[in-house]
């Protein structure tokens, strides 16, 4: 088991966002987290990624009890073991593609220039966009930007990839390519949790968890 949430509660200004959410994610799965806007999907992803510490309940991710970790330990976990992909790509426009991909290296183990370049090339090669290594985000299409964002998430060779609406800003064809990419990465052993409201993305997952009004409404798939 890679991650386990037990009775997670989360409020925003007195309004409950997550109510008694419990779920598990096994190593090697692609799990989709589906539900309408405001159902708490992204909040759950942030809790799993250690970005949101203000919740009640027990969250265990990659063997870490998140409630027991301080800010620095959570940052280290995000740097070494978790990759994030966002709907709006979140690339830093003033950096090159290579610099964006290598962004985690600033906060992790020291790498020499050659090793850094090798890792950047490998990550970009995995997402099929190595030829854009010296380009700028402004020169890329939406699909290419998302591939760069995925390469950045893969840079530290994480065990868990958390993707928040990764196809939300892409046309359907480009979105399909991203889904295929996720499937390829999963076949290579990467565990992926995708937050989505798109049916086609959900179908590509080995398991789908539906959230409604902050509760787990249903869980379908192999480990359900």
């Amino acid at each position, binding site marked *: 088991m890679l991650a386990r949430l037990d009775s997670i509660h989360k409020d925003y200004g007195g309004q409950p966002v997550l109510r008694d959410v419990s779920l598990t994610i096994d190593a090697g799965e692609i799990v989709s987290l589906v539900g309408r806007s405001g159902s708490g999907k*992204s*909040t759950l992803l*942030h809790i799993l*990624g250690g*970005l*949101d510490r*203000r919740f009640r309940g027990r969250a265990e991710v990659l063997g870490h009890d998140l409630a027991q970790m301080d*800010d*620095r330990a*959570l*940052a*280290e976990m*995000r*740097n*070494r073991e978790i990759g*994030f992909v*966002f709907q709006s790509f*979140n690339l*830093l426009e*003033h*950096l090159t593609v290579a*610099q964006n991909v290598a*962004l*985690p*290296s*600033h*906060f*992790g183990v*020291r790498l020499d220039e050659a090793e850094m370049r090798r890792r950047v090339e490998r990550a970009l090669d995995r997402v099929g966009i190595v030829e854009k290594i010296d380009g700028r985000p402004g020169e890329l299409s939406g699909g290419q930007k998302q591939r760069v964002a995925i390469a*950045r998430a893969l840079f*530290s060779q994480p065990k868990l990839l958390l993707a928040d609406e990764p196809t939300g800003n892409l046309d359907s064809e480009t979105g399909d390519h991203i889904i295929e990419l996720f499937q390829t990465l999963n076949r290579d052993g990467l565990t992926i949790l995708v937050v989505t409201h798109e049916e086609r993305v959900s179908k590509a997952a080995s398991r789908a968890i539906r959230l409604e009004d902050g509760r787990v409404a249903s869980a379908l798939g192999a480990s359900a």
Partner: protein
Amino acid sequence: MRTGSLFGLAAQNLRRSRRAFLFSVFGISIGIASLVFFLALSSGVRQVLRRVFPASQLEVIPARSSLGTQTGLDLFGLGGAKPLDDVFARELRSEPEVAGVFPRMKLAFPGRAWGGAQLFGRNIYTELIAEGIDSNAMAGESLGPEPFSDDLGSQKACQTDPDCVAPEYCPWDTRKCERPIPATISPFILELYNGVLAPSHGLPKIGDFLASKFRGFGFNIELGRSFIGGASPTATAAPPTQRRVMLVGISPRASQLAVTLPLGFVRRFNAAYAGEKSAAAFSSVLVELKANQGAAAATRIAALARVRGFELADSGAERASLAVTLITALFALISLSIVLLATVNIAHSFFRQVAERKREIGVLRSVGASASDIRKLIVVEAAAIGLAGGVVGILLARLLGFGVDLAARSFAPDFPFRPSSYFSFDLAIVLGALGCAVVACVVGGYFPARRAAALDPAEALTS
């Protein structure tokens, strides 16, 4: 976060917001330029003051409140002031901060002097204002061709000058070969001559080269006779007599406004022309402090002098120094106000940037930045602005100082102790200004940095 990465990321961010960076650098550099300019000016003026009033020298005089000193009667052996004598000089010598004690004695009777035809093209006539000083005061000074000593010379019987071996000569009253009286003058007299007398009388200025030529320059004095006051005031005074004087150099220990002769000569002359009493008491005692002795040592010597019934001569140094300090403090305050305004501007700029870069901060948190990494990143960006602003400010101040010096050289009239530059850009001022710039910017960046570090990463990502 590693230091190299911290600086690398900070540099990337600053390059991106180039306009904000330049604006902030401009603001801080104006404040720092103004601060450095006034501090360097103050330091330069203080250096001039130190030339005029050497800080390591104190002059102990009889208390001014005494009737004798106020009326000048003690000079003629009639005053009521407590006399400065060898007993107090010995006590001063035993003080640990004191490097040397050199009694001085004023010439207590009228005299006149003339000479200078070889140097100025014509003889200059003047009243003789002279003072004697313990000849040990000139030990270590570069003097010549004759030593500054009380030695009278061979005292061989003679009728005319050729009977004596030069530079000795044959005085008509004693008919014994005597060497010229060695004399020194202070740099102050030289500056006064160069700054006032030379320009107004069309005489040549005396620079370093001419000053060296000055050594060996001779003139004549007549004791007991004055251009303005007639003969010596005492009935028992010796008849007027003439002597030759030879300038042997320029010394900061020489009396500021008088020709300085070895003490033994003045003592003998005073005894002959003003009576034994005026040959016994010193008019002042020059106290030379050891190197690196600060104001505390001077205060201690002043206290000791007061206890013994004497006081320190007011050279004007304290008032001049206080005036410089007050003016410097005023301008430094104005400069620091500019720096403060720049700090507020930097804080405002960073608060705005933090708001604009909220999502970026969220991205950095998602790839492994801790809250303290974010705080450090913004503080380093602020420090870089401070460093750049400091360097630009110092360069601006130097440029401005150069301009002022150039303008002064071109337009301002000559005056005593005029410096080649009015500014002294000491290392301490430069480093202090750099530190001030960096600290001001770090303070300006600190609170925005705290706000950035406190951002909830999940909220920042969805902003």
